[in-house]
């Protein structure tokens, strides 16, 4: 869909973008994506320099890495790459601190990752991660984000409330723009007018929850969010990973695990048992209670498809109001999308295909990206993309079509550091315009994990203690 962009508005936008990068959310999508790539890159580079200058003095780890790499200024995008964070950065505390409830040192460590001054935070009385989160909230602007897979070491991202607010506004903008672009009845939500349930099959609250849910209710009214998993307890969430880490240190490690936490292992078993029931109960509500209503549903592709197929099996077409909206991502369990899945799902759900939006994002960035009608993910203006050689992590040329490891600098990050190297393999198109009319670089739909390539390699070094079921074993003991 190509819309003519008012040159006056575009001029105002590009001027404002130089002063406030987040201003793009005050403009319609066609304006935001109308800047010629070279011009946008000039603005981004200016921003990167500002962010770098502030962080070198303001974020201890960035300052140290810059010094180690002899970087004192950023001449071009690639100059900043050696000081990007990666998953390891947010997990780089010694596990024993967590087990010994040494949150004083955890706080000091966290303070080195961001520009927020945490020196005055007194975490000495904290006994659990939940306590620590509460103390950080009370005594600083940090609203801690946790990422922890079932087995990995917990990663702590020091996001401030202000940053979260920026993220929520950017998310809402994304939703509104997507709804506006739908062929048919959907239109952006109006505060005070539209009361549309937002259904999200995840946690409603807690350190791992999607912060947008609160913002949505604040904006459109209480009681609109349906997120069945309740409150996620950060200590329980991380326990499996902590046991796994500890088991690598033999008896010494097992002795380190906080006994108070270990005593709660039954709670984990209960939560794990309840989760499928809660999700199924949500599915039932969607099959029955929400029928014919206008809804917004945020889920994995697999879940959206499963829902639609349940309707299809019952012979139901048009299950929801035609102006409903579906956001999904994450792909299918089998790794390949069923043929024609979108059309079949749209028919069952009763919406135009364009009301199913696919997104790609990660928690290390404050914004995500959406797939356009031409099947490409457009990179937000506030994000500087990089594609790296997968083995050397060296940047690939910023031209043509390149495949490799995705890295980015998130210019919306304020007290956090925006540079991050992901584990995702992407294909980027730097200079071939997309048929949808958006300017700038975009990613192909196919995104996978970089690690997959190396699975087949065998070496003799390693430990069976790193078994991924070590935690299960101990939790059941």
């Amino acid at each position, binding site marked *: 869909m190509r819309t003519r962009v008012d040159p006056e508005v575009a001029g105002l936008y590009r001027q404002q973008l130089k002063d406030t990068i987040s201003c793009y959310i005050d403009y319609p999508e066609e304006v935001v994506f109308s800047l010629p790539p070279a011009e946008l890159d000039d603005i981004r580079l200016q921003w990167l320099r500002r962010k770098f200058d502030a962080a070198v003095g303001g974020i201890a780890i960035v300052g140290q890495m810059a010094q180690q790499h002899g970087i004192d200024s950023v001449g071009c995008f690639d100059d900043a790459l050696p000081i990007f964070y990666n998953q390891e*950065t947010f997990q780089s505390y010694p596990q024993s601190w967590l087990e010994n409830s040494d949150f004083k040192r955890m706080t000091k460590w966290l303070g080195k990752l961001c520009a927020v001054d945490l020196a005055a935070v007194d975490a000495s009385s904290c006994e659990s991660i939940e306590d620590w989160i509460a103390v950080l909230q009370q005594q600083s602007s940090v609203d801690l984000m946790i990422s922890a897979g079932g087995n990995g070491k917990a990663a702590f991202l020091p996001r401030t409330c202000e940053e979260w607010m920026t993220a929520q506004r950017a998310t809402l903008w994304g939703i509104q723009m997507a709804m506006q672009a739908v062929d048919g009845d959907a239109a952006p939500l109006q505060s005070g007018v539209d009361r549309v349930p937002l259904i999200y099959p995840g946690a409603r609250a807690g350190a791992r929850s999607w912060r947008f849910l609160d913002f949505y209710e604040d904006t459109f009214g209480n009681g609109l969010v349906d997120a069945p998993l309740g409150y996620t307890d950060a200590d329980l969430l991380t326990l499996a990973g902590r046991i796994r880490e500890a088991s*690598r240190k033999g008896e010494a490690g097992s002795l380190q695990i906080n006994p108070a936490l270990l005593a709660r292992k039954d709670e984990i078993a209960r939560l794990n048992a309840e989760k499928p029931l809660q999700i199924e109960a949500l599915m039932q509500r969607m099959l029955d209670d929400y029928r014919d209503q206008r809804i917004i549903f945020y889920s994995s592709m697999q879940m959206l498809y499963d829902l639609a197929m349940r309707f299809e099996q019952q012979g139901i077409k048009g299950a929801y109001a035609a102006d409903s909206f579906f956001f999904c991502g994450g792909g299918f369990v089998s790794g390949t999308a069923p043929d024609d899945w979108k059309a079949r799902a749209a028919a069952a759900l009763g919406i135009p295909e364009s009301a199913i939006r696919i997104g790609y994002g990660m928690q290390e960035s404050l914004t995500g990206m959406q797939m356009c009608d031409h099947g490409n993910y457009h990179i937000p203006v506030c994000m500087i993309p990089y594609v790296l050689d997968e083995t050397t992590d060296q940047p690939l040329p910023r031209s043509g079509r390149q495949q490799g490891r995705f890295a980015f600098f998130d210019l919306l990050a304020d007290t956090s550091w925006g540079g991050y190297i992901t584990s995702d393999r992407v294909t980027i198109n730097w200079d071939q315009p997309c048929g949808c009319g958006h300017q700038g670089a975009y990613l192909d739909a196919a995104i996978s994990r970089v690690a997959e*390539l190396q699975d*087949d*390699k065998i070496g*003799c*070094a390693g430990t069976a203690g790193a078994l991924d079921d070590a935690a299960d074993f101990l939790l059941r003991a």
Partner: protein
Amino acid sequence: MQYQIPIVARGEVIEDCEVTYQGRYGADFSCPDPNKYLSSILLPSRREMEALYELTIDEVVDYLVAFGQRLDIADNPHLQRALELAEAFNDVPVYLIKGALADLQRFFTREALEAMIDTVGREHLEGWKTYHRATGRISHIHAFGVPTVHVIAGNGPSGAILTFVRNALIRGYAIVKIPSNELGTAVALARTAIDMAPDHPLTRSYSAVYWRGGDEAFERKLYHPSNIERIVAWGGYESIRHISNYVRPGIDLVTFDPKISRAILGAATLASEETMREAAIRLADDVGNGNQNGCSNCRLAYAISDGSEDFLEKLMRFGQMVFDEIQNLPPEISSEAIHMDAGFKSKIAMLSMLDDEYHVIGGDKRGGVIISLEGDQVDFADELKYRTLNIVPLQDYDAMLSFITRDVQTVGVYPESVRDELRTTLALHGVQRITSLGYMRHFDPSVDPHDGNEALRKMSTWVLAEDCMTNEVPAQWRKPR
């Protein structure tokens, strides 16, 4: 760049390379479709193995000695090709592989082969060894080779070589799964054997095939008790996890598990400049040899504190000495990292930020030494690489032993008295080898126990033929009560 990796199936080279795999470091390789050639890879009948048992062990040894003489990389084009493949696909520097390939021939001397035979007992390999049992029964015991898949490690050529020798000595039928990081050696050996004696039963009993590890369609067909009786799997947690899906009654699994190695520095280590220097030189070799890719590389050293006030200061100085000695290692033994992953680098960089807790020396492509000032090993100690060592000061052996798990293969000790004092205790904690500091790479699994296994004995199937009549043992039901 694309390389072709043939299948060698029972003496036949198949070069119909139609399946392409993306390798690491930008090179691709293509192979024949293993599904298409499964029947060539498998023995058509167990009777095929009879020819092996018409050979004497002397003939087997003669074959291997003659084979070894053809393994001079200077004039063996197959090994030269293997080296080229290692350069493209392995993360071990090519001269280290070259060194290992040049050293191949040591496995093929008569003396080395006889020493390997001795680990099983020549009589058990040659034929039926007789035992007279107390009841009068006469037992004849013979160790046999059986159709076996060998999933070998790819961090060097030794897996393919040891498998060749071991398989010949027990007269088994080996299907080697070529590792994606070491694509050349198994094929090179098989082709050298074909050049030498194309129809020899031993030549026809060593096949080499690449398939993608975890290719379920192929593995389901291959790993069936009617096809193979044993899987010998080296290293790689993922690879063993895949394989465990196929283990069932009728298939025996022998694993050489992924392992790591550590050092114990007794209190006497820091007693004088001289002992510090000596221990640093030795420890540097254990850390740096082969660029710390192997299971028998040291990643952690526990230093027993003598309780003196300046201990930590001295330990930091010792750490610097180890780091310097790593830099002094001769290039044929060790070198700076070639490909260094950013995640690892940033882990070290983050530790260096925590300077109350860790003292970090280096931490770049030269390698590094991390001293845990508070006596707790780093969380990723077992994943240390690029010649990086974590030294952990501890008050006594009790504190040290609580860190020892069954994942520890080798412990290097200094001074020597530590071995005598601790070997039994270490063994009870799961340690499988205790050696002098500086000698971790001196390991010879062809004659000494391999990861806690007597490899040749375990790779054999022990068959019993009984004679219950000669000494007139009465039939069970006629035994007088």
